[in-house]
């Protein structure tokens, strides 16, 4: 009896939400890393991890355990405070972004009125963490990686926001639950296919993943902004990266693929099926294309994606005004 009354309080809700988000966070990090290695292996006619657990399913858990056991090394000459704080600056935004994700019709931590705005503004904070890491490392490669990351983020925020504006114009709402409900008859991917593609490309760029991984280009910058990091601090960067991949896919599902709408199966199952389908596409793209040059990256954003997104927004608003 006392437990139920505790759960109904605000504090109880917060505790349960944090626990739930942490569970999704951890399991996603483990499964997404495993998926990445498996898919990359099979695309290259390899098998990927096979030894730990059935088909290597526990490999990422073993790797995580190893990273936890490692000594945390702070190199000489770094800005110790910034160097220590930076991984958490990348990590916490991705935790906060979970708040507005509608996993099912009832499972959502907080259904904010400005959910969409909240999601994309919080996602920008992670870039500051990346710059902190690059600056504090006192390493030219880290700094170059961070600078590139900032340039890329600024450039690709614009097509992302422009492609999302189409959805906002259609539903007249920034509330994610309402956007999902508006798609019960038709998913927005059908009338808004071009924005979906623009969103996906820009999202991959925001995630700093191949073919847009110039901030951590191995052949030029060692590992970019996290060159000097090891042990658990590196693991936090790594986990944040895969969590962001999940979040971006979850947002694509919510905005374009009808969220938790779907027949027969429970809503939450539909949500995860769609999200991991997008995760699969992101991984598939990574193992197909080579890395772009920085100037090609900027050209592609400013000369192709941004104009296309603008034209698309104009057409959408024009059609909406006509009918």
């Amino acid at each position, binding site marked *: 009896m006392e437990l139920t009354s505790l759960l109904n309080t605000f504090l109880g809700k917060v505790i349960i939400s944090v626990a739930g988000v942490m569970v999704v966070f951890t399991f996603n990090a483990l499964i997404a890393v495993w998926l990445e290695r498996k898919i990359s292996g099979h695309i290259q*006619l390899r098998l990927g991890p096979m030894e730990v657990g059935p088909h290597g399913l526990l490999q990422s858990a073993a790797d995580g355990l190893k990273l936890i056991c490692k000594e945390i090394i702070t190199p000489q000459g770094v800005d110790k405070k910034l160097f220590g704080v930076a991984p958490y600056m990348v990590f916490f935004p991705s935790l906060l972004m979970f708040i507005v994700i509608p996993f099912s019709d009832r499972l959502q931590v907080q259904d904010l009125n400005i959910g969409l705005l909240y999601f994309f503004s919080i996602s920008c904070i992670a870039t500051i963490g990346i710059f902190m890491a690059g600056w504090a490392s006192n390493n030219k490669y880290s700094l170059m990686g961070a600078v590139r990351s900032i340039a890329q983020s600024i450039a690709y925020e614009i097509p992302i926001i422009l492609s999302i504006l189409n959805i906002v114009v259609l539903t007249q709402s920034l509330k994610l639950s309402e956007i999902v409900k508006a798609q019960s008859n038709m998913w927005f991917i059908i009338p808004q296919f071009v924005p979906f593609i623009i969103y996906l490309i820009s999202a991959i760029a925001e995630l700093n993943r191949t073919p847009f991984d110039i901030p951590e280009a191995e052949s030029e910058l060692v590992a970019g902004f996290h060159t000097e990091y090891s042990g658990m601090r590196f693991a936090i960067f790594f986990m944040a990266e895969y969590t962001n991949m999940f979040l971006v896919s979850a947002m694509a599902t919510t905005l374009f693929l009808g969220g938790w709408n779907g027949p027969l199966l429970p809503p939450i199952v539909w949500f995860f099926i769609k999200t991991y389908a997008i995760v699969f596409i992101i991984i598939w793209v990574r193992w197909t*294309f080579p890395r772009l040059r920085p100037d090609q990256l900027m050209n592609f954003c400013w000369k192709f994606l941004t104009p296309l997104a603008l034209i698309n927004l104009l057409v959408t608003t024009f059609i909406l005004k006509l009918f």
Partner: protein
Amino acid sequence: MKASYFEKVGIGIRTVIKGMKKSLVYFFKKPVTLQYPHQKKVIADRYRGSIRLKIDPQTGKHKCIACTNCEKICPAFAITLKIETPEGSKKKELKEYYVDLGKCIYCGLCVDSCPVDAIEHSNVYEVAERSKENLILRLDTIGEKNV
């Protein structure tokens, strides 16, 4: 002639689809990886593995006549024979036969030079050992190791 902006866009879209299709096709192909300790490759009959003395099925003994042809021809000095001639006999007898797998280059000259076809290559290729001494095969181990 340089391609125009829209031609470039068209080429881009075409090649993106082409590339994605290619990697998806490969994703569904059967992997070629062999999981070595669990799965082992089938070795060809004429593979030049480590040297072994042939056992004569009739006598149950090796056929070596101690002519030392193999010892002389070996370019890596991997083979050493220990020979004794008993009192009152002209026939040489093989006392010990050493093959140092650490030196052997698996060239097969010893097998070719044997007049009585007493030695051969086995299919054994997993010859790693923890000490150099274990790499030297003797008359008593040359059979059991190279089954």
